[in-house]
């Protein structure tokens, strides 16, 4: 079992957990993820490592309620434990001194972006971070991101905080302020958001890394559930990624594949609402 040593509600439906998992904490790097199971019957759910503490042997994850399993997880309290917690999985972010970089996070994407921005800053980059969300209530981890960025920019679709507009609008503004010179971009968030960033940087030729989050089962390259198409080649996101060159990713395919279990999910959610004893 993997005990939860800290729980913090970041905003409605988004919870931060610090979990004791020494073997994972000893090795985790920015860009990697874990797969967890909340209990004995639970699904295996991939979650990105937001932070790691090698001394304490803990991993921090941030979970957004979107369906059955994430809702079950977010009901766990301090002192509860995850049944299973495996990692670190995936290839770590390629950290180098690129010069000036932009780290664009959409909503929950701030969590996976945090260790990446920190590592990039430690490697000597000028790190301009952007957190974009629909409205100000959905912006998370601003203090943490501020601490690891040279500059932090906020944008909201409705203008309730920071720049009014999508994250791509904010990125355009940042680019202009910096004389058109940004050497490398990371974009993590919902597929549509990542795609819009990628479409923005494509004509400018700025290398843009995205973190793909397809449906996964084992996370070790054994099942192929996580396959995506990159540059016309099939890749397994769990072992070849999850980060890929955004200009090569087939987003249409990735978005379709993500939706495949939607109707099954509705059945699971129904059970959550009624308590599950009725057999519906």
């Amino acid at each position, binding site marked *: 079992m993997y005990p939860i040593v800290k729980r913090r509600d970041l905003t409605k439906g988004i919870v931060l957990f610090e979990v004791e998992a020494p073997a994972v904490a000893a090795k985790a790097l920015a860009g990697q993820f874990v797969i967890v199971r909340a209990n004995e019957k639970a699904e295996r759910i991939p979650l990105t490592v937001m932070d790691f503490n090698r001394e304490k042997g803990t991993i921090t994850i941030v979970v957004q309620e979107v369906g059955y399993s994430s809702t079950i997880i977010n009901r766990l309290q301090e002192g509860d434990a995850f*049944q299973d917690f495996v990692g670190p999985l995936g290839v770590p972010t390629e950290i180098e001194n690129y010069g000036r970089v932009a780290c664009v996070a959409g909503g929950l994407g701030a969590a996976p972006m945090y260790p990446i921005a920190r590592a990039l800053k430690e490697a000597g980059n000028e790190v301009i971070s952007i957190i974009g969300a629909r409205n100000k209530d959905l912006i998370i981890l601003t203090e943490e991101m501020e601490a690891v960025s040279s500059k932090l920019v906020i944008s909201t679709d409705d203008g309730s905080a920071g720049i009014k507009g999508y994250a791509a609008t904010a990125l355009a503004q940042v680019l202009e302020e910096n004389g058109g010179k940004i050497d490398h971009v990371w974009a993590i968030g919902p597929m549509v958001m990542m795609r819009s960033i990628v479409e923005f940087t494509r004509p400018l030729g700025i290398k843009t890394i995205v973190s793909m989050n397809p449906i996964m*089962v084992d996370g070790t*390259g054994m*099942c*192929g559930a996580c396959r995506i198409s990159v540059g016309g080649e099939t890749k397994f996101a769990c072992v070849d990624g999850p980060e890929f060159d955004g200009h090569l990713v087939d987003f249409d395919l990735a978005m379709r594949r993500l939706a495949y279990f939607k109707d099954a999910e509705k059945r*699971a959610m129904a059970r959550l609402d009624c308590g599950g004893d009725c057999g519906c």
Partner: protein
Amino acid sequence: MLEKVERQAMPCQDPAERARNFSEVALGYDEETALLEASRCLQCKKPLCRQGCPVEVLIPDFINLVKERDFMGAAQKLKEKNNLPAVCGRVCPQENQCESKCILGKKGESVAIGRLERFVADYELAHGSVTPETGVPTGKKAAIIGGGPAGLTCAADLAKLGHSVTVFEALHVAGGVLMYGIPEFRLPKNVVQTEIQNLKKLGVEIKTNMVVGKATSVEELMEKDGFDAVFIGTGAGLPYFMNIPGENLLGVYSANEFLTRSNLMKAYQFPEADTPTKVGKRVAVLGAGNVAMDASRTALRLGAEESIIVYRRSRDEMPARHEELEHAEEEGVNFQLLTNPIEIIGDENGVVKGMKCLRYELGEPDASGRRSPVAIPGSEFVLDVDTVVVAIGQGPNPLVTKTTPGLELNRKGNIVADPETFATSKPGVFAGGDIVTGAATVILAMGAGKTAAKAIDEYLKNK
């Protein structure tokens, strides 16, 4: 002279009924049937049957104990050579192994060795198993990577010899393909878990959720954690796809994904278990090995109206165990033989709606000695399906091999190991099972684990 006893049939669940449930298909012999079947064995002086078994189970000896109604003694006899008889009795391709060599088979029907093996092993499981004694502690530590049949067997034998053994398993349970691949209706999971409990009684520590190559590495285990020897048994866990257009459409699964969802994650109990799977009305399974049979029969049980095996060669060339093939036929799986897909077709939402195929005919024998299939020009047609499961084989997963410098691999990425000792090119590192041979059988993997344990023991003694 006594009346000639016929080979005893295996009692099975009724096909129409079982095709819709996940309970075990073959019900096993009762005592009386087992005694009748055992009475058929001639107790040959030179038992040919043993030569057909990769681990040389003491076949006449255990059958003789069955005749004497000493079922526990028979179980002990089996376990001298085979650590997992309850598994092997169920899943060995006996018709190509022990039973193919049985002298009775030359004129009529061979002794049903596998069924007797299963009977004895089940008897032991039901009547409380005897835990074998562990040897005097040697103070030596061995790490086993992968908790499949190869790794579990190696672990058990090393523990019996007194070594301290830790198994590192990537998934949340040990068992390998026995847990995630082979379905409940063919190999009940409690059979596998009982065996794993027995292993723990021997003092073997099983660390699940440990992906070697990520959370640790072979070198780290040896240099930092003080393991004196390592056995790699990571199996064939890399699904092959056909590389035809449409393979990333929704509704196309690898057999590994489809079976893992159903077996390991218990998707067949969804929504009581949390993992869903989806099976359409008409499912095509590509391939004709055990994996394909398991997938096609699982599809029926998950509610498919029609489950179709699509295979490029003919019935005679199918690599599956005969029993599985027969069971699949009885349950109503439809076989499209001499047929090969060339494209999977999707609808406007990217969901499978059909599969374009070509018909084949058999030509000249190829390198494998089988007549090779040749496409018939102009035979293209569309099979009406909404789910496709690709079961054309698995390769070696590179997570461990890529992170272990000094480990010699062959062209396909399998580990090269000495056929006698299973030693690899790296001192102190041994390997066996599917990671060495490519996808093979449970008994071969166990045989490798067993032989490697002997070699590891030698190595540790001299270290």
